[in-house]
């Protein structure tokens, strides 16, 4: 199998961009990534476009606008992990020798408010069961019941990530918040307050992958790109079932993906210097600590309290500000994490730089269930 490296990355800021189309945002991100990679028209043999709400042929529209069609262009949908799924497919094709250079990008323009998902049956919507934040809240409730996590910890996650986001010009929010502000925002679904939930929004991100012909090039290496779905049984799984088993030992999709990724990269959680993880809501970040084995079972509050996961700590998590600062454009969100981590590994992050970062992990998880874990190294 051939080694895969990152030749270039590009972003269109996440936020609300009025009438600007997903195609325009995609063009911005793709041009930036291709320019960085020194790749022009005809310089890549395939393209994978991650999107959940983009509609038919989103990838073709972006590459059509750039006059760069002819190669296979495949749209990839895997909910919040769409970008991770696209990376996995692209990296696998390069490693197997099918292509030498592949363009991977994600575009999204989310509706405002609670995300309407075609995932739910009409009767579930009618019965009030399509209440996405309520599922997040139940997961948060169970985390609090099964560990030392309190509402103050949930607020502290928001404070941390919003503080990180101040320095990220591609984020939606650039202001710090206090725990009191967070706890004073309205309750959406107890125990989750409005500011503990990320904002669905708009944006694009792009990554050019290429085969490493042998020998060090100084480029960031894609050490693992894994996507897993759920195994059935967990009632609060991101697969959003209506029932589950009474057993509590069903392995979550994030853990399945992380184990595969650590094995593929030949590293463990102790080798990581920086992590971008799914913080759709504040509790989801703490759950991710456990599921990615950044801490032991039930120890996420302790890890947060130790300061390890803030900038300046042992293992900063979400130095970009996370989804809580950036917002979540589903198809672009995982690749946005990868762009951040590539900049971190190159030492280009200025005030939010993790000094000397050599090993980085990106994690997304959402409906499907889909969990994506990407490990980057330099």
């Amino acid at each position, binding site marked *: 199998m051939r080694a895969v490296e990152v030749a270039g990355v590009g972003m269109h800021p996440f936020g609300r961009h009025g009438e600007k189309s997903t195609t325009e945002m995609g063009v911005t991100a793709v041009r930036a990534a291709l320019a960085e990679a020194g790749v022009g028209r005809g310089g890549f043999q395939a393209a994978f476009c991650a999107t959940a709400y983009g509609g038919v042929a989103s990838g073709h529209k972006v590459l059509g606008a750039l006059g760069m069609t002819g190669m296979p262009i495949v749209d990839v949908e895997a909910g919040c992990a769409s970008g991770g799924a696209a990376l996995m497919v692209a990296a696998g094709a390069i490693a197997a020798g099918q292509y030498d250079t592949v363009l991977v990008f994600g575009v999204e323009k989310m509706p405002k408010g609670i995300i309407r998902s075609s995932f739910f049956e009409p009767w579930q919507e*009618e019965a009030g069961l399509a*209440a996405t934040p309520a599922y997040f809240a139940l997961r948060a*409730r169970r985390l609090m019941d099964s560990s030392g996590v309190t509402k103050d910890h949930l607020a502290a996650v928001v404070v941390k990530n919003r503080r990180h986001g101040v320095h990220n010009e591609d984020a939606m929010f650039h202001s710090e918040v206090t725990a009191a502000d967070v706890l004073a925002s309205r309750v959406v679904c*107890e125990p989750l307050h409005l500011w503990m939930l990320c904002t669905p929004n708009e944006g694009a991100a792009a990554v050019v992958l290429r085969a490493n012909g042998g020998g060090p090039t100084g480029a960031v290496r894609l050490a693992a790109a894994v996507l897993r779905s759920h195994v059935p049984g967990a009632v609060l799984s991101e697969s959003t*079932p*209506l029932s589950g*088993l009474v057993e509590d030992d069903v392995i979550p999709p994030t853990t399945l993906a992380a184990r595969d990724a650590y094995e593929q990269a030949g590293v463990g959680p102790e080798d990581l210097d920086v992590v971008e993880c799914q913080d759709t809501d504040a509790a989801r970040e703490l759950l991710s600590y456990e599921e990615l084995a950044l801490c032991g079972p039930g120890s996420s509050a302790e890890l947060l309290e130790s300061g390890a996961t803030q900038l300046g700590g042992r293992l900063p998590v979400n130095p970009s500000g996370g989804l809580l600062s950036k917002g979540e454009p589903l198809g672009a969100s995982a690749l946005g994490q990868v762009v951040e981590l590539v900049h971190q590994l190159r030492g280009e992050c200025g005030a939010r730089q993790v000094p000397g970062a050599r090993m980085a992990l990106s994690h997304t998880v959402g409906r499907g269930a889909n969990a994506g874990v990407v490990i980057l190294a330099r």
Partner: protein
Amino acid sequence: MPAADLEPAPGRVPVRDGLFIDAETPLLVTGRCRACAHLHFPRQRICPYCSSELVDESRISGRGRLWAHTAVTAAPPGYRGDVPYGFGVVELEEGLRVIGRLTEVDPSVQHRGQPMTLVVVPLHTDDEDRTVVTYAFAPSSAEPDQTDARR
């Protein structure tokens, strides 16, 4: 159980057929797999746990204990009923956890482990002036019977 008890009240229509029996003592319609013995809800033709096609319908009491709870404060997409409403997971005596609405809207007056029972509640009135109903869970004074878990 007398057959008359299974007849739905006139003017009421379930939000979807096959989820529950709308009777004075309502029942939850689950699937029970003959191969792996697991229960699932809503009932599927094929077992979600072992892919066996030997799935029987199993109507169960819906008695159990509250396992996790919250409340929905803003109407989610496609929902036409009242807000707020309770929302949670109940662990049923028969050995499965089920997600559903809770009749109690205040999370602070409920606690994990409290006895719950299945009820059928109105959602809204449809275009034909019928009351659309769904399953939900209500606090119950009766302790769930642990010795008669019909697995």
